Structure formats: C-alpha cells, structure tokens
C-alpha cells in the first residue's frame, strides 16, 4: 500500500511484569469507569442527542423478498408539509461492504431489493409521524423475482441471481454462492477411514440475533464549515468513517464520526449501515441535523446475526482416544448480502483447530445468498456453530472409547508454544487448568454418569482469537494507536479510537495507563471513539481491543513514565529507575518517605520535557499459515475455555432446564477480574439462550404467502432470557500470562460463549442418553428423540388423523412409557 515504505514492526509486546514490582491497578476488583453513569441514566446515548433544528428520518423498506425496482416516485412525499428531504438509492450509487473484497451493499436499493425489509428510500421531516406519513406517499413499482429461502436451492440454482455483479462491477460468476473455502491439511481420509473409532453426524445451528437493548441510531450534522459529523451507535467508527467517504464521495478529512455510549452491540453494529449514510445525505440535502432511530423490528431486518449452518462432521480417534482426523462440510445461509461472510466462511473451519489437537483436518464450507436479512458476525463469529458440532463429536468419541470426556480432552491437547494443523501459532494455553477447575468446581466426578435419569452433567472446550492478525483492509499501519496527554492538574487523558460497547474497553485502557503512571483510576479520563480526537483503532470486533489497544496503551504510558521518572529522579537526585510511581505518588524506591504527588511529578516533568503527551502503537507479529487464507484466523494469542453444565430434562414435557454452569476461562492476565467475570457470565448467558430460547427465523416455505417474513421481529416473540430464565453461572478465571498481550492479557469477550452450547448437549446425553444435534433444543425435539430412543414410532400426527393417538389407551401407554423412562 504505502509503496516503497517498509512496515515498521511496532512493539509487539511489553512483557508480563508490573512496571514497579507489584501491580497496583491491574487485577484489582474495580468498577467500570462509566458504570455509575449508565446506571443513573447520566450516560448519553445516540438517541439522547438533540440538536437545534434537528429533523427526524424514517426508512421505506421493501415488502418483497426479491424484486426489481422499476421506478420510485417521491414527489407526493416531498409535497407533504413538514417534509424537508427525501433520498433514494440513485443518489448514493457507490457500493460498500465492511470487507473490501465484497462491496455489495447500497445505502438504499438502486435497482433491486433482496429481502423483506431491504432499504428503499428515506425521508427527513419535522417529526417522526410526518416522516412516517411521507413514506406512505412514496410510490415504488416492483417486478417480482423468484425468491430463495432454502440455502440448498441457492447452492444449485443460479437464476435469478441475487447479486448480478461482483466487486469490480463485472457479472458475478458464482450464481448464488457467496463464498466457498476448501482447505485440507494432511491425509484426512486415510486418517479417518483407518481409525479405531469414527463418528459421523449432521448438525444444524439455527439463526440467532444480537438483540442489543439499544436499537441502531444515527444523528448527522453538516456544518457551515463543510464538516460532516455523524454520531452513531456503531462499534467500528473507523470503518464507518471510510465507508462514508467512499459512498458520499467526500474527502475523509471533512468527515467526523463519533460513537456515544452504546447500549450493547455483540457484533450487530460492526457493519456500516443504511441509516448512517441516509442521515448524512439527508442532513446535506436539508441543511439541518437529522436523526434516525430504528424500531425494534428494523433491528431484526438490519440483523447481521449468527449464520444458520448445516454441518456434516466426521471425526475419528485411535483405540486410546487420540483424535486422528476431523472432516467437515458446512452449508452456510448468508442471507442477502456479504457483510463479513467471506471471513465467516473461513472462520467456520479455521478457528476449530484447538484446544483439541487434530493431526489431519479438512473443511469445505460454502456460504450462499438467500432472500433473508443478511447474516454477519455475532459474538464468537463463525466458530460457535462448528464448535457445537465438534464438541459433541468429541464426547461421542469419548463415549465410544470409554473415556471420561474431560480425560479425552486432556489426551488431545493442542499444547502451548505449538503450531496447529492449519498453521496457527499457539502461545500460552491454560486449557488444562481450565479443565481441572471445572472438573473440581462442578463436582464432576461425583455426578457424571451418576445422577438420576433426567439429570446430567456435560462439558465442552473451546478456543478463540484475541484479535485478527490483519486488518480487514490490507495496510501496514498500526492496528491500534493511542494518545496519552499528561496535564499539570495531575490528570492523564487517554485518547483512544476503541469502541466501548459495554464490554468495558475504556476501563481497560484507563487501568493500563494508570498502572504505567502510578495513578488512581479517578486520575485518568478516557476520550474514546471520536475520529477527530482519537488516533485510529480498528474497532470493537474479533476480541481485539484488550490485546491490541492495550499494548498501545502500555506503549504510550511507558514512554511517559520514563519521562516522569527522569524528571523526578533529577529532583530527588536519584537514578530514574529508582523512582517508583504508584497510587498517585512518585516515591524514592529506597526511601518511601521521600515522595511527591503525581501532580507535582507532572509539573517537574513538564518543566523538563515541555508539553507532555505520547502516542502508543501496536501492530501484530507475522502469523498464520503459508497458504491462501492462512492468515484468516491468525491471532497473536488465543484464549481457552472449559464449560461444564448441569441440566435437568423433563421427560414428560421435553423441557430442558439448565441448572448451572461452571466456566473456567483462560484470559491470559485479568486486567480487570470483575470485567472478565462479567464477560464470562454474559457470554455463557447468551449461549444458553441460543440453546433453548432464541431463534431468528424467517418463514421459508415458498408456497406460503408468509414466505420471507421474519417470524418474530419483536422482543415479545424473540425470547431473550429474563432473569428467571438465566441459570446460575460460576465464572472462574485462569491466568496463563501470554507473551503477546499487555502484561500477559488475552481476550475474554467471545471465547466463553462457545462451549456453553455443546456442554448442554453433552449434559443432555448424560441425563437421558440422547444426542441432540439440531438447535434450538425445543421440547418437541427432545420428546421425539426420547421416543426414538425408546423405540417408539407412533407420535401423535400433526393433523390429528391418527385417531389411535387420541384414545385413552394410547395416552395411557405413552404416559406409562414416559414414567418408566423417568424412574
């Protein structure tokens, strides 16, 4: 990119040790710096922003799943009193996409619509009611096209094509296939076919949504100085900044993107979205600030949630229980646009090669387009689904070999300081300790195989990246940059491009800088995610911030610490390294009585070095396999998790109750243990909800009029768990101290989701001897599996035709069988 200029390798690591003997801030159980403000309602979210003269905007959406747009007439809408501007797709013709190789989205549809809810036009008016009324006055003529709801159909049928052109505007050659990846490592077939034990099954992972409590919202102002400012509930301000420049065809330096407080994201706010472009364009047209807030229903259309996957898995091991090979074939339903889909397709295979070691491996993953809301990254992007399949396969193999599932996993460890079969570098690995912790905490040895029928324990393991080694657009600049300014008042101000989406990244930055400079947390203030004020950071995705921006923070803090030590050393007349910074003071290490406050220390430092500020940067080490796609899934460090779950199965109703989870997570070093525990709990809670409660589902039977409609685009029907539905979670931290992370830290935000789902499946097997392979585990499926196991064939038929089923005898027999099963 930067032709002729060599990439500077920037301080990849700072070592695991505290800057001054013991840690003073790192590892403390501190509150999040913005926690109280959020709890009291003081925190400002995007929808709280009100600007003078601000208009309200609404989006017109397609009522058809697949159609050509023949014409759009906005004249009646424009004529409505109170309407200030209308925008349509032809005014923003440049396509974009978060992955630069697959730009297939328009801010508003230009020539066709691809799902029910696709954006067609937007209106800005004096209030929302007027904007809504104007939408009804926009006349759109459609020509209906045959829709695709079944991914199998998209696989084989290429006409009509959902996307006609590729990134270069040339005819798209792959029909309705979005991406295919086939990678093979070693002689898989030989390793599996000749093995002592082989398991082979089909697994289904359904779609799920992020359901953040804050719906998407954006506010734009086009100032008289020619600067366009966008406030948006995004988790990737930098990529939004770039996308705005591209689509609005405006120089990037005239655009400013600010991310206010965020009410959750979970990956659902990591694409540039239609509303962001629309409020900008409408603000430019109307010369007024413009706000758009999505309804809950619209967030389900915007989606980018977990991809539904159909997965065929074969896994084999030798007689001693050593895995010999893993082979998978995966069909991924991508919905209507690419989003992160290229990466998802790779991740569905690339992220699976630990903590269980595979000597041979093949995956063949295909993502297809369908006429449904676009899928994207949800917490644990791409790998939660195959992890579900794999961890059940491992348990099945353990059962065949006659090994305890935990023992089986110990035997197959992908050890620390090793290379996985697909060429990823594992640095630290605390998985064995995670296994020990959950085994002990759950009382595993007293429970596994020993609980009464209907109750059981199960476990699963997983691994996840701490950031991706390469930015989504190729460049050799730092992945994370930070600026720390020291003030005469004794304050350190941290300017970071990172997005605190509730995961607590700003608190992590504050903690790291406070540690380096010996400050209390109240002496550090964080200014985050404002492209005018803060250095570039790539955003809150792939669990990258703690490791990457954390290293940058330590880098900047350390530069300033050296200056402060030098100035204070001169003042005390001692060598700089004898100066210790802690708890808001600068001490003489040899004589604790000799101390001055940080404020005094900063004054001395400013006197000596002039105005005080330092930047910090981080870039990744070279990583990844030496083959096409080998860098996707490469990360500087990997986190590891073990889950144990205890469940009870009501064999009469088929209902599953998750009684408790025990989770041990290796996060490297816990910069903030409270936050790590919070992430473990939040991830596990989210995974548990995907097992039994949540389903992002589109009516898919083409012969029905409802085909293409989202089944439940509301929080009444899309059932996220309430506190009553949340199992108890015992979160344990394992610290492996990684050489790559800041003071040894890795990730905690996504890894602890993965195992929660297969652990429940494996516990259900322990409870009642059935392997459930199709999510969600609805009670009906549980009953069907229980019956299949009992060799029963006659389930009541849906249309009530089987009259025998309604007889008292049949019911009695059924109930008796159920009762027998229970005892």
């Amino acid at each position, binding site marked *: 990119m930067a032709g002729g200029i060599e990439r500077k390798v920037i301080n990849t690591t700072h070592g695991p040790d505290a800057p001054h003997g013991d840690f003073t801030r790192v590892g403390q159980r501190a509150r999040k710096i913005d926690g109280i403000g959020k709890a009291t309602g003081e925190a400002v979210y995007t929808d709280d922003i009100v600007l003078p003269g601000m208009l309200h905007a609404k989006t017109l*959406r397609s*009522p*058809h799943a697949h159609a050509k747009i023949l014409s759009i007439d906005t004249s009646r809408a424009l004529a409505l009193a109170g309407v200030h501007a209308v925008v349509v797709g032809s005014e923003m013709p440049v396509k974009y996409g978060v992955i630069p190789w697959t730009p297939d989205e328009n801010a508003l549809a230009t020539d066709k619509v691809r799902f*029910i809810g696709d954006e067609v036009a937007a209106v800005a008016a004096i209030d*929302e*009611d007027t904007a*809504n009324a104007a939408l009804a006055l926009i006349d759109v003529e459609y020509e209906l096209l045959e829709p695709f709801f079944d991914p199998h159909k998209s696989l084989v049928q290429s006409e009509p094509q959902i996307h006609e052109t590729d990134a270069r505007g040339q005819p798209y050659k792959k029909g309705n296939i979005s991406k295919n990846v086939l990678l093979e490592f070693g002689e898989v077939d030989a390793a599996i076919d000749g093995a002592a034990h082989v398991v082979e099954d089909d697994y289904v992972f359904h779609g799920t949504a992020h359901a953040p409590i804050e719906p998407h919202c954006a506010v734009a102002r086009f100032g008289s100085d020619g600067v366009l400012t966008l406030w948006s509930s995004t988790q990737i301000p930098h990529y939004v900044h770039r996308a705005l420049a591209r689509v609005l065809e405006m120089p990037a330096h005239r655009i400013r993107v600010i991310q206010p407080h965020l009410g959750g994201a979970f990956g659902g706010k990591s694409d540039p979205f239609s509303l962001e472009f629309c409020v900008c364009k409408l603000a430019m047209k109307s010369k007024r600030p413009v706000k758009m*807030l999505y*309804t*809950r*229903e619209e967030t389900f259309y915007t989606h980018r949630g977990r991809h539904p996957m159909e997965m065929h898995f074969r896994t084999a091991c030798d007689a001693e229980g050593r895995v010999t090979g893993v082979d998978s074939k995966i069909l991924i339903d991508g919905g209507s646009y690419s989003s992160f889909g290229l990466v998802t397709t790779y991740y569905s295979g690339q992220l699976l090669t630990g903590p269980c070691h595979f000597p041979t491996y093949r995956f063949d993953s295909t993502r297809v387009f369908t006429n449904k809301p676009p899928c994207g990254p949800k917490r644990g992007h791409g790998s939660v689904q195959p992890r579900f399949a794999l961890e059940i396969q491992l348990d099945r193999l353990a059962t065949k070999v006659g090994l305890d599932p935990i023992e089986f996993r110990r035997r197959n460890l992908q050890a620390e300081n090793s290379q996985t079969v697909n060429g990823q570098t594992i640095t630290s690995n605390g998985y064995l300790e995670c296994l020990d912790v959950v085994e002990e905490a759950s009382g595993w040895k007293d429970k596994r195989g020993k609980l009464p029928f209907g109750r059981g324990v199960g476990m699963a393991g997983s691994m996840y990246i701490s950031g991706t080694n390469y930015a989504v657009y190729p460049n050799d600049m730092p992945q994370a940059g930070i600026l720390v300014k020291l003030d005469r008042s004794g304050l350190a101000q941290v300017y970071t491009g990172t997005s605190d989406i509730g995961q607590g990244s700003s608190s992590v930055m504050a903690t790291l800088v406070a540690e380096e400079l010996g400050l209390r947390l109240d002496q550090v203030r964080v200014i985050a995610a404002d492209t005018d004020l803060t250095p570039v950071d790539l955003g809150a995705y792939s669990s990258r911030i703690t490791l990457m921006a954390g290293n940058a923070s330590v880098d900047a803090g350390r530069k300033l610490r050296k200056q402060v030590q030098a100035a204070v050393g001169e003042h005390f007349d001692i060598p700089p390294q004898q100066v210790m910074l802690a708890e808001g003071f600068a001490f003489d290490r040899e004589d604790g009585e000799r101390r001055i406050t940080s404020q005094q220390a900063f004054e001395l430092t400013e006197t000596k070095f002039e105005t005080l500020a330092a930047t910090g940067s981080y870039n990744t080490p070279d990583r990844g396999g030496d083959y096409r796609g080998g860098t996707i899934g490469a990360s500087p460090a990997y986190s590891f998790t073990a889950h144990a779950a205890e469940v009870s199965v009501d064999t*009469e*109703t*088929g209902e599953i109750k998750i009684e408790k989870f025990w989770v041990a997570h290796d996060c490297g070093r816990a910069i903030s243990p409270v936050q790590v525990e919070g992430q473990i709990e939040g991830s596990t809670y989210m995974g548990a909800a995907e097992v039994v*409660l949540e389903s992002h589902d589109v009516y898919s039977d083409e012969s029905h*009029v*409802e085909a293409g*409609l*989202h*089944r*439940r*685009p*509301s929080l*009444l*029907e899309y*059932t996220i*768990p*309430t506190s*009553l*539905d949340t199992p108890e979670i015992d979160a344990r931290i394992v610290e492996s101290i990684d050489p790559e992370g800041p003071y040894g830290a890795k990730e905690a935000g996504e890894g602890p989701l993965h195992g929660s789902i297969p652990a429940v499946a494996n516990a259900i097997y322990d409870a009642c001897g059935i392997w459930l392979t199709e999510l969600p585990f*609805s*009670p*009906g499926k549980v*009953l069907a599996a229980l019956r299949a196991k009992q060799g029963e064939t006659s*389930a*009541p*038929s*849906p249309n*009530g035709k089987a009259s025998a089923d*309604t*007889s*008292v005898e*049949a*019911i*009695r027999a059924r*109930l008796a069988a159920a009762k027998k099963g229970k005892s």
Partner: protein
Amino acid sequence: MLRLPTFTYESPATIDEVLALLADNPGRARLVAGGTDLLPNMKHGIEEADIVVSLSRLPGLSALAELPDGGVSIGAMMTLETLASHPTVRARYPSLAQAVGLVAGPHHRRMGTLGGNVCLNTRCVYINQTHFWRESLGYCLKKDGSACHVVKGGKRCVAAASNDSAPVLMTLGARLVLTSQARGERIVGIDDFFQRDGVQNKVLEADEMLLRVELPAPAAGLHGAYMKLRVRDSIDFPRLSVAVAFALRDGAVHDLAIVVSALAAVPQRMRNVTELAEGRAPDEGLFEEIGAACFGQCHPLSNIDGDATYRREMVPVYVKRALRAAIEGGVSS
C-alpha cells in the same frame, strides 16, 4: 420506537360520562384501563380509535366487595398485581390469584387490570405485527383483509384467546356485570361472554363497559389450579393454558370443571370430564383418563407461536399437572 397514532384522550370522572362518550361516538371510542394491550395494538394498527377514554379516574372500580351470597365482586379496574396478592382472593379463589400472577411481567401486572385482562384482544402470529409486516403479508380478515392465514380458505378468524384470567373465571362460574347508556346494567355468565369469532370474541357491545366480575361463594372443599405453557418464566403469553376446579368431599371429586385456552378464539370448556370424575377418588388413574379425554377435545392451531402438535401433546400433561397441583395446594379456605 413504534409511534402511537393520534387520538383524543378523555379521562372522565363518572361512569355516566364514560358511557356517554361511548354512545356518542359509536365504534370510534375505545376504553383504556392499564393500556398494556390496547396501546401495543394501536401501535401495530390493529386497533383504531379517534377517542381513547381512560377509566383511571373512575371511583370505586378497583375494590373488592363481599356479596350477600358469600361470593365476592371485584372491580374491573383492580390491577393484576393487587388481585394476585389480595388476601381474600388468595384464600378463597387461589387459582385466580395464581393465574393473574402469571400474566406478563411485573410491570404489566402493575399497570394491567382485571377488566383489561377479561377483555383482552385475541392473538395471532399474523396479526400482532406491525403495519409494515401485515401489509407485506397481505392483510387478514381480523383487520383490513378478507383471508385467514391460519386456516387457509377459512372464513372465520381463529385468533387465540390468550388471557390468563378467563379459563380460571370459567371454572369458578364468574358473572360479568356490564353496563351501557342505552340498556343499563346486565349480567352475563362468563361462558356466554365469549364467542367464536377471533375478530371480536366477546359479546361486549361497542357502547358497553365491564363494571365488575362477580364470583359465587366457593363450594365446600373447592380445589383449583392453573397451568400455563410458555417459553420463559415471565412476560410470555400462554401457548396453552389449563384451569381446573372441583370440590373434594369425603375423598371424592365433585363438579370437576376444566377449561383449556390459547387454542382458538374462545376458552374451551372440556366436555364429559365432570361425569367422568364425579364421585371418584383423585388418583393418577383418574387424572390420566381425564387427560386423555381433554386431549381428544383440543385441537390447537398454528395461530400462535409454538408447534401446534406439541401444544396438543401437552394438553393431557398440563391437565394432569393442574389436577395434581389442585390437590396439593389449591384449596379454598
């Protein structure tokens, strides 16, 4: 957020004024109590009103009064939260307290009223959706259209009665006191209050309001219970609901009443179960027979979320569990 349509809001202080507003604006005025059903439905465009008449200022409608026959009268404006914790109700009609305590979530029960619950609109996966959604689908005959998406080719709306109070009130033999300007007060037995039409499943006229719900004195040894199938332990409407009541005297079951709801537009009173159980001991054998009898009478439709086959299979399970719960705990004192 979804927007409420614009309307005029009236909040009269007397019942006469309320009735006058209804009479003067035929079909264009709607009553609002807690608003937890009406307002979401108005946001979805499935209920419309030019005038919304609040009952919140009416005096005396949120109280419970003893009746001369030993029964009670409960004002339509009593909140579900109050009702669920009311000592008299908990003592004499525990299944009612239990059922209304299972309505929605705590916030809804604080706002929602008994009257609003009894008069709850029916529900259907194809109707409780936004205007955009329903327009994309094509309207149905409950609102703005002529076809039913549940029963293809059907001419009658089969949206589900989803109120938790109704099945219990039916097992308790409740009477509803209605009033209107034109016809004055009338008393309707709760079984006659509901009718087989999901568009309007109540005989309540457009100019009429519900004043109170009257319950007869509990029979000696009355046992009752309510069971609700749902996905979460809070908030969710029933996917299937079962209310049972019977008198247990000298170890024998008398006057068994069972009502199953969340099936179609009307809560369904189970036939033959009274005869089947009369005078018999409340044991598992009896419960299974009764469960089987109910199973044969219940045919859930795909009108609400949750697999219809599964909901049907749960009929006997829930009936049995309700009977057991009634034996164990649900006794009137």
